[in-house]
């Protein structure tokens, strides 16, 4: 497939994630939207990895593998982030019984 298709697909997914972050006010959903953004990037990276492999795979059989490795690391980090993030949200919920970010306005100006 032309790489452009993947690019636009990923960008579209990414922007849906962004729009989600912007429109929702539930912290968990926002966080999920961020995960969507990360996955869009993952898809893009894998597509690029493939693209590079196609381009230079003749000389270097492992060409493009670094993109996949990177995706692997993204997943790792995402997992870590999720654990921390959910812990923070849970802590917040324990204290305020809400995950609505609109109530996060003690700190301003």
């Amino acid at each position, binding site marked *: 497939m032309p790489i452009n298709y993947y690019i636009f697909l990923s960008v579209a997914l990414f922007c849906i994630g*962004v729009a989600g972050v*912007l*429109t929702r*006010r539930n912290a968990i959903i926002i966080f999920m939207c961020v995960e969507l953004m990360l996955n869009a990037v993952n898809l893009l990276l894998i597509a690029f990895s493939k693209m590079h492999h196609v381009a230079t795979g003749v000389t270097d059989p492992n060409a493009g593998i670094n993109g996949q490795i990177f995706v692997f690391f993204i997943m790792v980090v995402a997992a870590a982030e999720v654990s921390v993030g959910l812990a923070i949200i849970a802590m917040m919920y324990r204290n305020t019984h809400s995950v609505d*970010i609109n109530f*996060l*306005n003690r*700190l*301003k*100006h």
Partner: protein
Amino acid sequence: MSNYVYLVPLFPLVGFLINGLFRKSLSKSQSGVIGSGTILASFIISLIIFFQVKQEGFQPVTVTLFEFIHAGKLSIPFSFLVDPLSTLFLLIITGVGFLIHLYSMAYMQEENGADYAKYFSYLNLFVFFMLLLVLGANYVILFIGWEGVGLCSYLLIGYWFKNLDFDNAAKKAFIMNRIGDLGFLIAIFALINQFGSVSFDTIFQKAPTASTGFITAVTLLLFVGATGKSAQIPLYTWLPDAMAGPTPVSALIHAATMVTAGIYMIARSHILYNLAPVSQTVVAIIGAATIILAALIAVKQNDIKKVLAYSTVSQLGYMFLGLGVGAYNEAVFHVLTHAFFKALLFLCAGSVIHAMGGEQDIRKMGGLKKNLPVTHITFLMGCIAIAGIPPFSGFFSKDEILTAAYARNPVYFIIGLAGAMITAFYMFRLYATTFRGTFRGTPDQQHHLHESPSAMTIPLIVLAILSVIGGFVGIPEVMVPNANLLEHFLDPVLATGVRQTVEIPAATEWMLMGLSTVLALAMVLFALYRFSKNPELGEPVGLGKWMRDKFYVDEIYDTLIVKPINALAGFFNRVIENEVIDGVVNGVGRLVQYGGRQLRYLQSGQVGAYVLLMVVGIVILFVVQLFLRK
């Protein structure tokens, strides 16, 4: 001896320092003696110098004391010039000065010790500066003396500083002088710019090379200085107010010496003036106008010193008229005679005031000739002298000026003649009101009436004699040929350069003399007749009121100059300074604060808004980048 000329100003300076620094510890007689003695010493040296200068073949001597200012190519030495002109002035200053010092010793007796010493120290300082003025070999030294005498005048007018009116008068004198000085100063700058020097000899030597326009400008500027110092229109109003000072001061500074500095300066610069006919005309016109204006005002004044003050202004006008028509000798001659009789008149006035216990209003005097015989006689002589009755000194000097004026333009002569008539009139009005008739003061004053002590009368007598005979040093050519000693003496200085006097026939000259004498006599008699028995005591009306109120010149100045400046200053202070300039400065500060307060609201606390703004930021960066690429 000429090389020791610096001793002349040195003595008064020493006197000033001693009296000034040790005024608390000196007794009155000590400070009086020091004050007068130093002037006497100067006078003696001046005399010696005079006799040296008088000898045939004397060449002017420049005595350089030290390098005063030296910057780049400009070099201004602190040097004195000894020539006939300066020598003559030395004599006037130290001679009359000494007499007035002597007089002051008695006159100021009522002051306490420290103030007494202060008075003499100021007086000595004045003499010092006056001597600098006339001795200076360049315009800067002249200017030092010029401003210095102004300062002393300021200090002495405000001598009784507790009276705020006196202080105002002092301030006014200083400031009006400063206005004139400014013109002088700018003239000096212009001369430096043109000639690269301020020395008289250099400038006069190079003067013909300069353009007429330049010379005219410089001479006019110098004349502005002279109008300030010598109380000419438009800067004359300070002089009558200056009568606030002790009367001997008025005699010395505001009659005999300082106010003639302008004449000295212009006479000194006559080479420049000769090159600038326009300036000469201006000088003559101003002088003539001043004669009439001041004389008219004098007619209706009732303060004995004010009358004399306006008379001084008027007489100075004669001198300027003389200068304006190129009669430098004659002007200087008038300076000399005027110094005698005007000092005399002032001192007499002082004697009267002294006797009257401080009263200066002539309406409250009258019939003083019985009680003050010496004063009366001497005052009368002064009056005759100033009125121009031959053979008193004033006649010679005034008539020589008038003759010269006639030679230039008969209109000048007519104005001068009219002035002379008015002069005779108001002087004898003053004389008659004061000394004739009956006493109109309080009984208490009458009880105290007495002749002044001899320390005061001796100077009166000396000056009276000089007023009478002083004119003989300058007998006109038509009367006795080659008898004009003064002209002979001064010619080496004043006859240089281009002279533009027109010779007039001897017969005409005689006729002019006769005319002025007759008219003056007529006015004298009219005034005596008019005022001896029925002095004018009421409020004047019509023109008389205008004259009494000095034609409202002070008020006009106040309205046209002082008040607008004050208003402008107030406007600057209140509005421009505080609201506009500082307002802008503070406004910037407030704007920043306001910006800070408003920008804070961007920080709304909402995560959604933050992310939105971030996205907007990203979009903007992309847009910029897209545009940048194209």
